[in-house]
Structure formats: structure tokens, C-alpha cells
């Protein structure tokens, strides 16, 4: 039964124009990064002629020029700022609208409550995650068209990956693997941010508050990050708006902080949706 209803939900979420519109917006934002990097590429190749041709080919490596490897273009500034809103807008609104509009009543009378909430949770998670990583994947493919696959080298200074930051050794040895792992992190985080809306929909009646509270909370966390870092006693990045970017700045990323926050969000959102959902009266 779960699989049957999950298929219906996934079809509803991933085949609508709205979802693909969000992906389109994400892609357009990443194009701002590609445009600037490509003009850098043209300048770079124009400068490297004669005996210096391709001397610094490493500066055009995919791993330092895709949106997750660079951190100075308008595209990267906009994408990682608006990332939570993209995740939320993909399908985070669905449960709230179904609850408010009464659609949920028609479903609950036909399928088990647990099936409904679990399907909705999985779909919201998947749509949120995909809305975040599909533009990033598109950017990787686009960057492949004009960059090379040189392994990053810290001595050249074209990349920034701190010693002690999460998977820094992987970045300098197996960068492809690093990118895939970071895309998985972004997928999971995007999904969890979207699921926050679903969990909030149990408590709040204001649609805009449900949709935008996670984004505003992330901004507040970003502001308070130095105070929290001071309390922790070590300089690590605790703001998702910063650490969802694969190349960490201004502070290194800690695996424990990342894992802990994922675990907390998963527990809070899934716990709320399943426990509260089971008890909540939809009629």
C-alpha cells in the first residue's frame, strides 16, 4: 500500500510544471556562475600563449570552477542564499495545502494514516533534495564543457579547502568522489529543509509562515553562528547557508556538526510528522 500511494505522490510532485519551474529557476541562477567562469576561462586561455600555453591548466579544473568549487561569482552568492527557498518551494507547501483544503480527508478515508504521512514525507524530502541538486548537476555538466579534470593542487591557490575540513583529503585525491558525497549532503539537507515545512504545518495556520520560517530560521542561525562557535570553543562552520557549499568558507566544516544537525532535523521532522500525524484529527 505504501509503495502504491508513494507512486501517486511522487508522480504528483515530480511531474508538475511547478517542480520543473523551480528547477528552471535554480538552473538560471547557476548560469550566472557559469557565465562569469566562462569569461574568466576565455581571458585565461587568451593570456596563456606561446611557451606558457596551458602552464596553469589546473586553474581551469572542474573542481575549482563549478558552482560548488568557486565562491566569488554572483551565481554562487545567489544560489546558496536562496537554496532553502528552492527546496521548500519544490513540494514543501503540499501538505499544508492538502490539510487546509481538505484533500487529506479524502485520502485518509482510503489509505492508512501512516501510509499517507510516510508517503508525503518521502515525497517532500525527495522533491526538496532534487530541487537543490539538479541545478548543481546541470552546472557540473555545463562546466565540463569548458574545464578540465585536473586534480586540485593547493600550491596553485585556485581552490580553497582547509586542512581539517570535512573530506579535505578526498578533495585533493579523489575530487569526483568528493563532489558526489557533497551532492548527497546537499540532497539530504534540501530534503530535510522541505520536510521542516511539513512538520510546521501541524502547528501553524499561516501559509507564508510555514513556508518561510525555515529560511528565516537559517538566516537567524547564520547571524548567531559566531556566538555559537564561541560557546563550542572551536572554529567550525555551523550555518547550513555556508556549509552546504562544498568548498567551506569562512570556517572549516565539521563532520560531527553536519551529521548531528542532519540527525536532529530528521528526528524532529519525521518524529513530528509520524507521531503528531497519527494523533491529529483531520476532520
Amino acid at each position, binding site marked *: 500500500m505504501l509503495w502504491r500511494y508513494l507512486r501517486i505522490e511522487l508522480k504528483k510532485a515530480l511531474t508538475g510544471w511547478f517542480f520543473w519551474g523551480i528547477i528552471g529557476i535554480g538552473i538560471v*541562477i547557476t548560469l550566472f556562475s557559469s557565465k562569469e567562469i566562462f569569461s574568466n576561462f576565455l581571458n585565461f586561455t587568451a593570456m596563456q600563449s606561446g611557451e606558457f600555453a596551458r602552464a596553469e591548466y589546473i586553474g581551469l579544473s572542474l573542481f575549482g570552477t563549478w558552482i560548488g568549487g568557486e565562491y*566569488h*561569482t*554572483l551565481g554562487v*552568492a545567489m544560489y546558496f542564499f536562496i537554496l532553502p527557498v528552492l527546496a521548500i*518551494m519544490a513540494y514543501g507547501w503540499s501538505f499544508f495545502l492538502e490539510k487546509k483544503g481538505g484533500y487529506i480527508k479524502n485520502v485518509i478515508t482510503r489509505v492508512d494514516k501512516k501510509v499517507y504521512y510516510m508517503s508525503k514525507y518521502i515525497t517532500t524530502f525527495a522533491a526538496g533534495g532534487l530541487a537543490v541538486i539538479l541545478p548543481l548537476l546541470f552546472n557540473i555538466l555545463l562546466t565540463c564543457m569548458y574545464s578540465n579534470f585536473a586534480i586540485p593542487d593547493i600550491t596553485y591557490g585556485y581552490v580553497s579547502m582547509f586542512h581539517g575540513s570535512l573530506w579535505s583529503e578526498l578533495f585533493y585525491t579523489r575530487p569526483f568522489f568528493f563532489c558526489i558525497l557533497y551532492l548527497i549532503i546537499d540532497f539530504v539537507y534540501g530534503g530535510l529543509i522541505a520536510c521542516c515545512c511539513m512538520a510546521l504545518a501541524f502547528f501553524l495556520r499561516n*501559509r507564508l509562515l510555514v513556508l518561510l520560517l525555515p529560511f528565516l530560521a537559517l538566516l537567524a542561525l*547564520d547571524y548567531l553562528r559566531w556566538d555559537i562557535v564561541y560557546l563550542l570553543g572551536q572554529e567550525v562552520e555551523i550555518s547550513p547557508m555556508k556549509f552546504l557549499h562544498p568548498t567551506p568558507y569562512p570556517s572549516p566544516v565539521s563532520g560531527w556538526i553536519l551529521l548531528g544537525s542532519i540527525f536532529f532535523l530528521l528526528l524532529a521532522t519525521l518524529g513530528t510528522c509520524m507521531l503528531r500525524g497519527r494523533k491529529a484529527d483531520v476532520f
Partner: protein
Amino acid sequence: MFFKLLSHDLNNGIRKRLAYYATALVISLTFCQGCYLVIQSLNRRGVAGLSGNLADYLVYLFQGMKVYYPGPDNPFIFPVMWVIIFILSAYLMLGYPFYDITRFGQQILVRGKSRYYWWISKCIWNVCGTVLYFGFFYLGAVLFCFVRGIPISFHVTPELLKNLLKTAAEIEMTAGECVLYLIVLPILVSLAFNMLEMLLGLLTKPVFSFGAVSLFMIISAYYKADWAIGNHSMVLRGSKVLGEDGVHTGTGLLLIGGIVIFSVVLGCIRFKRYDILTRE
């Protein structure tokens, strides 16, 4: 009839939502406390040895960010304090018009006999809401200074600001300039953002318009340009810090006025044919 509409909007959109606007007071107190801690830290290190006054705190709150020069060795880090101040204002101004149009506002619209009145009333509500939001924000700063015993005056302390904003410039402002740069311009910039957001909400969906205005704020932080109107509310991008290179306030005021008028006029035209029944 227009005044009935306006009174309805001011009653439902402001009086009954005062608690939402009061969040500005909370964030103002939080940011002022942050500024206070920075000043204390500077004093402990013997850098400044000054306590500052209300104007110094406001300069700190509206500092924005230094001019950004993109490059591989210079990561872009958005000015979170500045963004929160303006994004919260945009958020508070987002919901009410679209909430109203789907509920009681539909009845009013029919009885009001003019769609223009409805839109103009919402525009005036937007102006009042923005001013009220910043009213709470400044009230928070004044309260903070009062409680901490900090002088409530509009005389900046250049030596303190130099260290507080980490700039080499000597920032000197008269009381009139303080009012212009620290009160009038932030309110006007926020008003332009909010009006644009309300207009875009008519053309798309409210959340999209919020996203678009948020991105406009990031663009303002990224580029130092007169057209990126957010720059006019950042002290670090103004002529007081950058001199001749700073953004031009006159151009900024013209652009802000243009955006507001454009939003009002285009909103009138769009709202005339706006299908209120298909909207949620």
C-alpha cells in the same frame, strides 16, 4: 469609500498584526547587544576606549558590507545583519494583501466599486507598515541605549566607528546627515523593496516575489552600483565612507521614487484585470 477601505487595511493589516511588527524590536535589541559586545571587546583590547552613542549603534546596524571585489581569494559572504533587517520587513509586508483578497477583501472589493481604491489603499498600508516596522526597530535601539546608559544623540564618534566598521575612513556626520543616512534612506529603500514585492506578488505568487526581492538584496550586496538600491542603505557603500566613489544619494532617491511610482501605477493596471476568484 476610499477612507473606509484604508481604515479597514490599517485596522486589519496593522493594528491586529502589531505583534508581528514588534519582532523588529527584538531583532534591534539583539543587534544592539551584538554591537555593544563588539565595543566592549574593543575597549578591553584598548583599541577605542569609547562607549559610543545612539548614532554609532545605528551606523553599526546599517553598515551593510564593504565594496566586494570578486576574485578567487575573496569569497563573497553576504551581510547577514543587513539582510535580516530588510528581509524581515519584506516578509511582514508579504502576506496581508493576498490574505485580504481571498477573504473579506473580496466583499469590500465589490462594495468599494473601484479596484484602484483597493490597490492604492494597499500601497498606503505598505508605506505605513514599513514606517511602523522601522519605528519599532529604532525604538529597540533607543530602548537599548536607555537601559545601558548610552547617550541618545545623533553625533557619531569617528574614532570608534573606524574600529567598529574596520575602515580607514573618518566617518563624520551632522545630525541632519544622520537622519538622512540612518533613518530616511533605510526606510525608503525598504519601502521600494516592499512595493516591488507587492507588485511582483500580483504578477506571480507571493513566495516567488519574496524570493525575487531577496535575490535583489543579494545583488545589492554583490555590486556597488546606484541601480542596486540596497546600496543606498549601507553606510559602508555611501559617500561618508567612500567619498567620491560612494553611491550617489540623489540618484538613489530618484530610483527609489521611480520604483515606488512604477509599482503603484503598474499595480493599478494589473489589478484592474486581476482574477481574484482563481487565487488561493
